[in-house]
C-alpha cells in the first residue's frame, strides 16, 4: 500500500485533486481515531484533523520520504492533540465554550444507544471503563483501515515493540470487564460474536 505514496504525493503536490482524495480516504479515519483516543470531544477533534490536513497541504513539497507520510500525519496530529488538551485544561468551567460541553461525561452511554445489539452496547460501555492508556491504544488500533503498528507507534509516541504486548494486556483487561455479563457471547470464550 505504501509504495504508491510517492506517486500520490507528487500528484497532489501538482494539484491533482483525485490523488489528494485518495490520501484523505486512506488516513482521515486514522487521524480521527487518534484524536478521539486522546479523549478530545468531536468538535475539537474535527479542528485538529482539519489543521493536520492543512499542515500537510502547506508541506506537500517538503515531505522528505513519502513512506514516512503516515508517521508524519500521526506525529503532527499528536502534537495538535496535546496542545488542545493543554488549552482545555487551562480553561475554567465558566469560560468553557458551549460546544465543548455538548458532550457530557456519559457520552459513551449515548453512543451505546446507537447500537442495535445490546451486547455491542455493553462492550462499548466497558471499553469506556478501561484505563485511559488502553482506551487510547485500542481506539487508534480500531481505525479503518487498520493502521500499521509503525503508524500507531508514531501517533502515541510508543516504541513499536510494546504495541503488541500492550494490545494483548488491554484486550485481556476488557475481557475481564465484560466476562461476567456474557457480552462476548457463549461460554466465556471470546469469539462467537458476530463477524
Amino acid at each position, binding site marked *: 500500500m505504501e509504495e504508491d505514496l510517492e506517486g500520490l504525493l507528487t500528484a*497532489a503536490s501538482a*494539484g491533482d485533486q483525485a490523488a*489528494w*482524495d485518495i490520501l*484523505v480516504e486512506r488516513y*482521515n*479515519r486514522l487521524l*480521527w481515531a487518534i484524536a*478521539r483516543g486522546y479523549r478530545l470531544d*468531536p468538535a*475539537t*477533534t*474535527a*479542528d*485538529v*484533523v*482539519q*489543521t493536520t*490536513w*492543512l*499542515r*500537510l*497541504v*502547506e508541506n*506537500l513539497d517538503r515531505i522528505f520520504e513519502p513512506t514516512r507520510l503516515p508517521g508524519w500525519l500521526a506525529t503532527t496530529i499528536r*502534537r495538535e492533540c*496535546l*496542545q*488542545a488538551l*493543554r*488549552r482545555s485544561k*487551562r*480553561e475554567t468551567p*465558566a*469560560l468553557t*465554550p458551549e*460546544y*465543548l460541553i455538548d458532550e457530557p461525561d456519559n457520552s459513551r452511554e449515548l*453512543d451505546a444507544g*446507537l*447500537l442495535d445489539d445490546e451486547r*455491542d452496547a455493553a*462492550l*462499548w460501555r466497558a471499553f469506556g471503563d478501561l484505563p485511559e492508556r488502553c482506551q487510547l491504544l*485500542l*481506539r487508534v*488500533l*480500531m*481505525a*479503518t483501515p*487498520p493502521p500499521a503498528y509503525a503508524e500507531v507507534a508514531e501517533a502515541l509516541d510508543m516504541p513499536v515493540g510494546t504495541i503488541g504486548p500492550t*494490545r*494483548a494486556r488491554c*484486550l485481556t483487561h*476488557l475481557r475481564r470487564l465484560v466476562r461476567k455479563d456474557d457480552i*462476548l457471547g457463549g461460554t466465556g470464550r*471470546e*469469539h462467537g*460474536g458476530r*463477524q
Partner: protein
Amino acid sequence: MNAAMNKDDDVLLDRLRSIASIVDDPPPWLDQAARAALSRRRLDAELAELMLDSDLSQAALVRAGDDGVRLLSFETASVSVELQIEDVSGQLTLRGLVSGASGDAIVEMISGSRVVPISEHGWFVAGDLPRGAIRVRLHAIDGTAVTTSWVSV
C-alpha cells in the same frame, strides 16, 4: 501469546472497529473539508514557520499571564509575526505584531477570512474569531507574499 489467543484478540478488535464505525465515525462534512484542504495551497507565498508556541513551551517562561493568552511566533528570513490569542468565553481575539511587512493582514480561517490593516507600528487586531485552524497572510516590504503556517486555536 499463542496463535489462538492472537486470533481471539483480532476478532475482538474487529468487533470494536465495527462498533466504532457506527458510534464514532468522522462526520461526512469533515471528509469534505479534508478534501477541500488542497485548494488552500498557496504556491506563491513564502511559508513563515512556527518558531515558538507558548502552549508547547515552559509555561512560566513565555506565558503572558495566568489568563488564556497564547503566544505564537512565526518567521521567514525577512518577516516576523507574533500573535497573541486571547480566549474569552470561547470568542478569540487575535493581536498581531509584525516586522518586515506592511499593508493589510489577512486572517484566514476554515470558513472565510478577515482583512485587517497593519498599523504603522506593526500592530493588527482581529476579534470575534471562531475556534479552529487559522493562518495569517501578509506582504513583506519587498512585496513577497508571506503566509504563516496553519495553527489550531
